[in-house]
């Protein structure tokens, strides 16, 4: 049985990446990267500068072609750039360049390509983001352009939404509005991929977390899984370095964040910045921790 919209077998992951290799100018950025993205999730794609987050997003959308390996999005190969697939993908790049046309012209010229575009929803988003109307798009501020394209992307009904640093340039009210709109837009047949360095802007939104590091996926787990294996505490003083179960400790404003082996009995929050720092600085321990519990890292 296949999904009528995606063409992919129902229940299959929306995105699968197998043994992906890719590099720029003869170098190698990814060497055998593997990844799966299941429908109904908002994936947080994290990594250091140059880890390849934007590159991976471009590979998923067909903007770049892999050197080897296989990428499947909704059962299709993105590098072929088939219109049927492109009409089900929307990417919001970090660098924005909108044409010198009005918002009405933009919708008239772009919306037809997306069969799931919902004009009413788009109008609502524009209203909620308080985007000035009847203004040429290139005259809008960076944040306004971003909000306009976000509104369009959320309204176009694509199954795969790829958002590169979506909260950059957004004012504080817009960031919370963004979280609310994304949360209400995600559905069982959609996948959102959000790449960001501003994890606190989206920490209530993204789950699972995917961390890219040194050319491969270092970490790929949902937060419930993380909470079942580690917990975080905050203390005024640093814990002893040899404290039992201590994985990582980091100085923070007014104290220390510490990461410990073992589930959090009280279900305390996971700070994504600390999680990221821990995974990056102690990949061996994380690998051991998750593998020992029968979970592939």
């Amino acid at each position, binding site marked *: 049985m296949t999904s009528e919209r995606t063409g992919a077998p129902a229940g299959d992951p929306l995105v699968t990446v197998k043994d992906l290799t890719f590099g720029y100018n003869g170098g190698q950025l990814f060497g055998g990267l593997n990844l799966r993205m299941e429908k109904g999730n908002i994936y947080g794609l994290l990594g250091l500068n140059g880890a390849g987050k934007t590159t991976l997003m471009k590979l998923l959308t067909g*903007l*770049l072609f892999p050197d080897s390996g296989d990428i499947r999005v909704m059962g299709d190969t993105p590098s072929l750039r088939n*219109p049927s697939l492109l009409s089900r993908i929307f990417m919001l790049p970090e660098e924005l360049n909108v044409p010198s046309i009005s918002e009405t012209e933009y919708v*008239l010229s772009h919306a037809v390509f997306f069969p799931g575009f919902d004009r009413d929803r788009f109008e609502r988003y524009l209203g909620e983001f308080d985007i000035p109307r009847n203004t040429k798009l290139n005259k809008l501020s960076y944040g306004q352009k971003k909000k306009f394209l976000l509104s369009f992307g959320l309204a176009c009904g694509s199954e795969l939404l790829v958002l590169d640093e979506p909260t950059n340039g957004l004012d504080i009210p817009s960031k919370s509005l963004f979280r609310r709109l994304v949360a209400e837009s995600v559905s069982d047949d959609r996948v959102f991929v959000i790449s960001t360095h501003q994890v606190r802007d989206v920490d209530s939104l993204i789950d699972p977390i995917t961390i890219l590091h040194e050319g491969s996926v270092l970490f790929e787990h949902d937060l419930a899984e993380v909470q079942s294996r580690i917990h975080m505490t905050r203390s005024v003083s640093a814990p002893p370095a040899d404290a039992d179960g201590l994985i990582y400790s980091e100085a923070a404003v007014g104290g220390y964040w510490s990461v410990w082996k073992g589930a959090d009995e009280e279900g305390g929050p996971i700070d994504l910045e600390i999680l990221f720092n821990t995974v990056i600085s102690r990949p061996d321990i994380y690998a051991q921790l998750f593998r020992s519990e029968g979970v592939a890292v």
Partner: protein
Amino acid sequence: MNQTLEPRRLGWLARKDFFAIWRGTAIAAGAVAGSIFIIAVLGALIERQRVADYSAAFQFALVVWGAIAASLAFGELHDKTRNEDFLLLPASSLEKVLVRLIRVSVVLPVFILIVVFLASILSEATTSLFFSIPFRPFNPLAGDNWTLMGCIIIMQSVFFLGAAWFKKAHLLKTGLSLMIFGIALGFVAAFVFRLLFAAYFEGFFTPVAMNIDFEVLMHQRFPALMDTLEVIGKTVFYGLLAPFCWFVAWLRVKETQSSDGI
């Protein structure tokens, strides 16, 4: 859904392009029409006779505007801030190329024809009314115009390929490439003549007389070869050049990646 060619998507792409370029095109049309009008009226005012040559104006506009438009046909393809929108637009590479090709090779020449025609009507009406110069507007249906349009479309295909091929300064680089190609061809021809007609040269490349027509000599000496070369030349120019350029442009667009703009 047809993944390669669907008329509906061609229409959508054409509409998208229209929104993007109509303002610039209107300004350019205004500049062409205004220039024609000013030349016609100034000529009538100073010379008291018709000085405007509408056919020449049409040819000039067609060559210059056509080459510029063809060179800018894929302006966003190699611009990293704009190519993502172009590449991710849900249409096939063939459709994206075809729409631009139709725009610069069919729509634009006809549009220039109409602009020059309307400008000539306005100019002729003005000069006829105020300077009693007989009303004789540009004839857009004249066969010469359409023959010229055919040749221009072929030449434009080179600039169209340049637009897809080069990352920056498309017009300049295409022009330079054509010039280098012409010079290279000239050198080859010069060497051939030098070898075949050694008696007509003194030194390395200095002809014994300035009025020697090597083309005539070639026809006299090698009539069959020259006829064959002419057939080959015409076949290449009229039959192969444009399709080749369009095909390579399509391949180039198909293979373009976002990193090409970096």
